[in-house]
């Protein structure tokens, strides 16, 4: 299928006797915002970890832009165009905001180890470019004034934006967001929704996200997959999912007070 940027085919993940993922197949359409939801422990983050090659699935394949990437080394997914954020924001605490973003550009840097020592023109040029690109990115997300603060000195919402910007710096084609709205108040969540929509358009991305907050997911995703106990129980548009009896009963046990 040409317009699927990501396909997971019959992915299963077993940890000893525990079946975390059971024969899951899903597709993410290019330029869409696709969601992955399900009650706690359904296997959503595990699914992400399989997609980002942090876990090798016991069975099944992960196909990115037509290429089978199952079993790739995790750091190799970035050059091919995938980047992710984490459920509990994982910025580099001892680095400044600017340096965090500059790390995102690490892949673009071409100079060899001896060049910083000899201060070659290529080194100086690429260092300057990296810094400028990082500033530009910060400008786009309205955080340029905070460039030299330690990452931990920002508000939670700002940190999340920096984490997403850092992922954007790798020029991904597919951006995976693991519960980006976790820990945010309603206003921050609305701002985040707009933010995600905007970066999707201006950076020409596809977004695949995990989220717990129903309003958030329904408000932003075109297609949603639902997991429960490691299996896919439903897929469809937000309207279809909302009416799906299996989905409703899976969540009935959950305290769904967050929206």
């Amino acid at each position: 299928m040409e317009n699927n940027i990501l396909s997971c085919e019959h992915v299963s993940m077993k940890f000893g006797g525990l079946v975390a993922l059971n024969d899951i197949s899903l597709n993410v359409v290019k330029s869409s915002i696709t969601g992955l939801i399900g009650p706690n422990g359904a296997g959503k983050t595990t699914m992400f970890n399989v997609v980002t090659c942090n876990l090798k699935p016991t069975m099944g394949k992960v196909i990115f832009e037509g290429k089978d990437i199952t079993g790739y080394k995790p750091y190799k997914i970035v050059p091919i165009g995938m980047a992710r954020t984490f459920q509990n924001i994982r910025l580099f605490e001892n680095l400044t905001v600017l340096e965090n973003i500059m790390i995102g550009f690490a892949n673009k840097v071409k100079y060899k180890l001896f060049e910083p020592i000899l201060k070659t023109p290529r080194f100086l040029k690429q260092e300057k470019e990296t810094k400028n690109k990082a500033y530009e990115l910060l400008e786009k997300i309205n955080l340029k004034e905070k460039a030299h603060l330690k990452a931990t000195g920002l508000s939670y919402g700002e940190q999340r934006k920096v984490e997403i910007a850092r992922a954007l710096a790798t020029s991904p084609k597919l951006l995976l967001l693991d519960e980006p709205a976790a820990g945010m108040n309603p206003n921050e969540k609305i701002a985040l929704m707009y933010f995600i929509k905007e970066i999707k358009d201006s950076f020409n991305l596809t977004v695949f996200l995990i989220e717990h907050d129903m309003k958030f997911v329904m408000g932003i995703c075109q297609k949603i997959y639902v997991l429960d106990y490691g299996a896919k129980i439903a897929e469809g548009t937000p309207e279809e999912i909302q009416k799906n009896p299996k989905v409703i009963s899976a969540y009935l046990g959950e305290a769904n007070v967050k929206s």
Partner: protein
Amino acid sequence: MLTTILQQLINGISAGSLYALVAIGYTMVYGVLRMINFAHGDILMVGAYLAFFGISAFMLPWWASFITAIIITGLVGVLMERLAYKPIRNASRVSLLITAVGVSFFLENLFLVLFGGVPKAFPIAPIFHGVLNYNQIYLPVVSIYTPIIALALLYMLLYILHNTKYGIAMRSIALDIDTTSLMGINVDIVISLVFFIGSSLAAVGGILWSTQYPSINPLMGIMPGLKAFAAAVLGGIGDVAGAAIGGLVLGISEVLIVAFFPSLAGYKDAFAFLLLILVLLFKPTGIMGKELERKRF
């Protein structure tokens, strides 16, 4: 030739049992805290010295001295954890390792200052006296007792780990410390217990070691400690039975290498390290193959 091999085998099993006793402490601490307790080998030394002073300074009968030494060493381990490790339990792993190195160095030099660097002769308990001679095979009595004691202790420990509340708590912490504490288990007490058991076993190892190679000095724990860690990794770090197996394999291999290649005798101690590198290269999860990396995502 056969008798030599048999002789060496027995030596190896004896040495291996000693490594096993110390390795168990390493592996248990690594299991629950994901830290390499550098000071563990020095705990062996502490046990040996306490036993020595029990007999020579306090004139206790050997069995009383040994038991007291073992218990006090266990408590020293608990104290060490409470004072130096607990405060930084949640800091980076490097911080814990650095502190452990500091504690190790501190213990070595404390005993150096208190008791001097001159090796002291360790009194051999009457029960361990003597050498049996069977068809040209010389069996020091202590070499027979050592594996038996080690096996018995191992069996008791495995029983505790699988059949008692605290033992199960230990294994649970090794899998997921945060969830375990959320389930109402007092993690601090369980960790203290782990250190108590590990240190007591190291003390047993220290006493038996000093009986076999009867001199003690403040730096005596370094080499056995290092080898015990290699044994723990060989067996599969985090796995108690694995540590015991690893210890035996190491002890026997060491002795056989020297038996077959006498010219390499001087390099005997380097063998454990070589084994460690090989294990890391080809089977990092060790003989028992446990995957110990905690959930990182």
